């Protein structure tokens, strides 16, 4: 009596699972190219042009920059992190991880003590010599230095492969790419003249070829500091008046305050006249990581608010005295 349902169940189970094996084989076949990519040993060229070789999927990873830490979290591999910098504050849990120094002053001894089998570092922030010391000790170091948003997305894909989650890397990069794409397809006219400053006293603006320049251009802005040579030109008050930005974006950081009244009383500058000075989260706009897309969407929002107000009162916007 008791056996009946049992055996019936087993029979039903057998009857119900006979398709599992062929499907599993099929799935495996589909997954094969994926697995080949993620398989180790893996050799990949980093942004220095160095071929970095990983014999097995890394189990202990040190990140030497906040943007790289954010990428590791984005990929869901934060369990691998055994060391980050003292600037790694996002997501909040990153701040609780063991620290191995700063960006320009990573502590080689602490890194070695953390016993990593992969160090993620940057080409332009971390000192090359210290990275070389780590490599001489047999620790694989993968250095990245994305110079634009497209390169950031590509970096996410590559780190996904390094950490053994190529599929996740590709999906995250794809969704970020789609969000950036969406911003670039929004309404782009009229095009505001935009000054993106990283310091208000002295006034230091982002010039051509910077990430901030890209954040201004993708949503249809014109960089008001574009005529200057150099990546971060320093502007006098008169330069600022001559540039005449419609919008001033401020990368908010510790020590960066608003403009002094001596500067902001120049009503010749449309941004001052109309109150279009917006402070954005400095971490968002200066870290070449996943959240740069959020920064881009924030900038686009500022632009569209400006466009709406301009459309509502075109005369008031153009009035030169107030």
């Amino acid at each position, binding site marked *: 009596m008791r056996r009946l349902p049992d055996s019936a169940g087993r029979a039903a189970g057998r009857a119900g699972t006979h398709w599992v094996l062929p499907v599993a084989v099929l799935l495996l076949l589909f997954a094969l190219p994926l697995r080949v990519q993620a398989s180790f040993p893996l050799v990949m060229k980093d942004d220095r042009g160095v071929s970095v070789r990983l014999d097995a999927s890394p189990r202990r990873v040190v990140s030497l920059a906040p943007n790289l830490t954010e990428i590791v979290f984005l990929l869901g591999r934060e369990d691998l992190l055994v060391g980050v910098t003292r600037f790694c504050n996002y997501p909040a849990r990153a701040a609780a991880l063991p620290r191995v120094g700063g960006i320009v002053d990573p502590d080689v001894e602490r890194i070695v003590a953390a016993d990593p089998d992969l160090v993620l570092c940057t080409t332009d922030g971390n000192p090359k010599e210290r990275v070389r010391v780590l490599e001489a000790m047999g620790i694989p170091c993968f250095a990245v230095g994305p110079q634009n948003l497209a390169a950031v997305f590509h970096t996410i894909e590559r780190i996904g492969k390094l950490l053994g989650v190529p599929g996740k890397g590709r999906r995250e990069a794809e969704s970020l790419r789609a969000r950036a794409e969406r911003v670039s397809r929004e309404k782009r006219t009229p095009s505001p003249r935009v000054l993106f400053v990283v310091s208000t006293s*002295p006034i230091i603006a982002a010039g051509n070829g910077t990430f901030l320049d890209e954040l201004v251009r993708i949503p249809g802005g014109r960089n008001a500091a574009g005529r200057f040579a*150099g990546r971060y030109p320093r*502007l*006098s008050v*008169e330069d600022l008046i001559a540039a005449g930005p419609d919008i001033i974006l401020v990368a908010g950081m510790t020590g960066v305050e608003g403009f002094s009244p001596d500067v902001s009383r120049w009503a010749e500058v449309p941004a001052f006249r109309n109150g279009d000075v917006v402070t954005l989260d400095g971490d968002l706009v200066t870290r070449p990581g996943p959240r740069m897309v959020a920064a881009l969407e924030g900038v686009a929002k500022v632009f569209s608010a400006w466009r709406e107000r301009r459309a509502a009162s075109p005369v008031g916007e153009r009035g030169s005295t107030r």
Partner: protein
Amino acid sequence: MRNRAIVFLLLASSFAGAVVLSLSVGPLPVTLGQVFRILSGGSADGAGETAMRVVLTLRLPRALLGALVGGALSSSGVAFQALLRNPLADPYILGVSGGAAVGAMTARLLLPGDSFLSLPLCAFLGAALAASVVFVLARRRSGVSRERLILMGVIVGAFLNALIMMMVALAPPGRIPGAVYWLMGDLSLGTLGRVGLLAPYVAAGVVILFLLSRGMDLLLLGDEAAFQSGLPVERVKTVVYLTASLLAGSVVAFSGLIGFVGLIVPHGARSIVGSGHRRLLPAAFLLGGTFLILADVLARTAGPSGELPVGAVTALSGAPFFLYLLRRNGGKP
């Protein structure tokens, strides 16, 4: 005598020329005619109100600040070179610069919010404190010896420089640029209010030094000789030291550390009017003011990537000119 009058006329007119040039040059186009109309109290028609406000509230204060700072640094340099009998002396040699820098960095790092006024004040306090410490350390019952002054100045300076490095290393990144630009010399903080605040200090300092001209002439001969010609040597040395230090300190407070002017302009002036201080001091003041105004014009306009640090422009543009001036004179310093 007439020769001398012509020299001073030339110096004064090049000074005036530098002021006018600096008023008419900048990113916004303003013509010379407009400058003269604005200066004569009329309104600048055509370019309108903006041009007038740019000239009066941006360029004029900078030119005046440049004149005061350049003049004061040169006068202070003349005084230090006489006091220490050393052609390598400049206003910063005895710890004034380090003291001012530490004061300014402290203001920049510790005082939150609007540090536009607190920075000059802290820089001045730092300079005054450093100068007094050096003086007290160098003093003995027999008086103040040059060697001890230089030695104490160098030690205190080294200590303060180390403090600055510590502050830069430990500061949060966002607070650094302002402080670093200030350390490289910066006239962009010039407003009419600040010029008005600085002018009495500079005037008092320069007048006191001028009144001590003969004393400085005698100091150059050495303490012994000066004493024998009836000079109250120790008192003169004390007053010259304190005046020149406070002159430099008050100027540094508003403009940051502008090098080269206080060291080289005195030599240039000496090669034009000789080493008698009654003529040397006014000549150095005019030459220093002219030179710094012109350097600032370059700093404002010549850089392809915005404003250049005027403290670097002074040496870059000044070195060749003063080399020429000094070599023409057979190389005597």
